[in-house]
């Protein structure tokens, strides 16, 4: 057909050329789509395999660790001194340090974040929201190392004016700074949840003579509650996993205490400490970081799942 087409009159040649062209073009498009599909699938699988790989490595190394340290000791011992002569492997001091700093962070970011979210979604005129939101999101873009030094050399001395007994390294200062860091997370997600509350609900409130504050607090806020809880849990999970700020400013001293004025060590800062120190690879002391890491992983994983569930439930039912 290809050879004979040159003998045909001009009009038919172009006709057959066109049909051949469109046939080739169809197969080309189909093949291209398939290739693109496979490439995209591979990209998606990279994240799955990475996650699986990390979990497997953690599990394997953690098993090594628990061959030598009983799980019960790990969960109940109140001291964490794997790097000392008298070795203890109780996760509790690290856990308490993590929870202490994270809860301080939440007690800063949740009230402040929710107030800002309500302001942005219900009160702020559109132009102001356009200006304020990017400013707020810049907070999330500041490198955590900067936050860490900010906590250590600025916030701690300031706080020492108020609490003279505050030690140079402590849980309070990095906790507060971490709270500022996760502020955009709380604000942004909460504001999204508030804004998708149907306009009809607000109007229903206004039509009964409710003021703006009453509508915001007694109708919009409860309607968005599960979305807001999800954002807080996500922020909590982020605070638990935060490393640099606490590694720099909290003191890296495993300490089973609820006193925010004392130095503490979190799970993350302990991992930094060991992986950057001169602990030989493969020793029991080194393997501790995997046991700590898997504890951390379980925590953040559970929190993320809860948050995801809440958000899904919220956006499928309330966000109509």
């Amino acid at each position, binding site marked *: 057909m290809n050879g004979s087409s040159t003998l045909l009159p001009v009009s038919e040649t172009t006709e057959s050329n066109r049909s051949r062209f469109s046939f080739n073009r169809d197969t080309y498009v189909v093949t291209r789509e398939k290739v693109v599909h496979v490439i995209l699938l591979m990209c998606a699988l990279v994240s799955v395999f990475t996650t699986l790989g990390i979990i497997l490595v953690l599990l394997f190394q953690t098993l090594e660790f628990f061959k030598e340290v009983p799980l019960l000791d790990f969960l109940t011992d109140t001291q964490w001194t794997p790097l000392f002569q008298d070795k203890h492997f109780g996760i509790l001091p690290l856990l308490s340090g993590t929870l202490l700093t994270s809860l301080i962070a939440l007690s800063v970011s949740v009230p402040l974040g929710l107030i800002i979210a309500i302001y942005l979604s219900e009160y702020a005129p559109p132009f102001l929201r356009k200006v304020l939101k990017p400013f707020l999101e810049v907070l999330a873009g500041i490198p955590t190392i900067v936050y860490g030094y900010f906590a250590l050399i600025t916030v701690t001395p300031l706080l020492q004016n108020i609490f003279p007994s505050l030690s140079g390294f402590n849980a309070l200062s990095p906790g507060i700074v971490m709270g500022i860091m996760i502020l955009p997370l709380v604000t942004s997600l909460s504001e999204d949840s508030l804004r998708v509350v*149907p306009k009809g609900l607000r*109007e229903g409130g206004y039509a*009964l*003579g*409710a*003021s703006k504050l009453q509508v915001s607090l007694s*109708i919009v806020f*409860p309607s968005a509650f599960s979305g807001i809880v999800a954002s807080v849990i996500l922020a909590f999970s982020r605070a638990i996993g935060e490393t640099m700020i606490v590694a720099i400013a909290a003191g890296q001293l495993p300490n089973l205490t609820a006193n925010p004025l004392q130095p503490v060590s979190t799970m993350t800062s302990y991992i930094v400490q060991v992986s950057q120190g001169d602990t030989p690879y493969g020793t029991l002391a080194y393997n501790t970081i995997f046991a700590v890491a898997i504890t951390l992983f379980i925590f953040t994983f559970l929190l993320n799942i809860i948050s995801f569930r809440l958000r899904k439930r919220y956006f499928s039912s*309330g966000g109509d």
Partner: protein
Amino acid sequence: MTIRQMPALETRNLNLHYGTNHALKNISLCISENFVVALIGPSGCGKSTYLRLFNRMNDMIDGVRIDGDVLFNGKDIYKSNLRVEHVRKKIGMVFQKPNPFPKTIFENVAYGLKVNGISNKKFIEETVEKSLKQAALWEEVKDNLKKSALALSGGQQQRLCIARALAVEPSVLLMDEPASALDPLSSAKIEELIYELKKKYTILIVTHNMQQAARVSDKTAFFYLGQLIEYNDTKQIFINPKEERTQNYITGRFG
């Protein structure tokens, strides 16, 4: 035949702009007490906008400009020192889509009382019961007052919204296509209810359903492209309209 009394609601030379869009053009209309007035007209003719003037629901839209007088019992609700919350309490509203709050049935009806500073528990309980009875919903929900309002059917939700509006004891009810999102049976119930309610309330109802307008209203106002074309007794409008455009609309030739 014509009894001179002060109209419950009135607009004089009312113009409303959304930015550059002239949505309501020079509308003058009187609505007497305890009348049901139907606002009809094709979509986008301004009837909903007109309805929402009376409880100042248009205030929340950016770029709205209102000129002229909007009177409630002789007082201008925009220019006098009436507080907007007070206006909304006296002029209740039922929306097109049922919008119960995600609270219990009881809390939904009690909400208007609570935001208006009433905390007497006994009074609230009595009012909730009275309002639900007025909205013909009491028998269906009296054993489930603690249940979420969202579990009710669409028709029940709409009657709940009516009960909620009645609880704050308004004198006027604005209804923006209150039955359009409902099935025919629930719709008929709402109509019956309107018939009952007009003994006590002045009712303004926007509707796309001509039969509904003919059945429930005493007077009908026909809006077209932001203008009030004709306002008369419902019978007159439907049997013998003066304007050709009204005739064309109600017989379904356009709109």
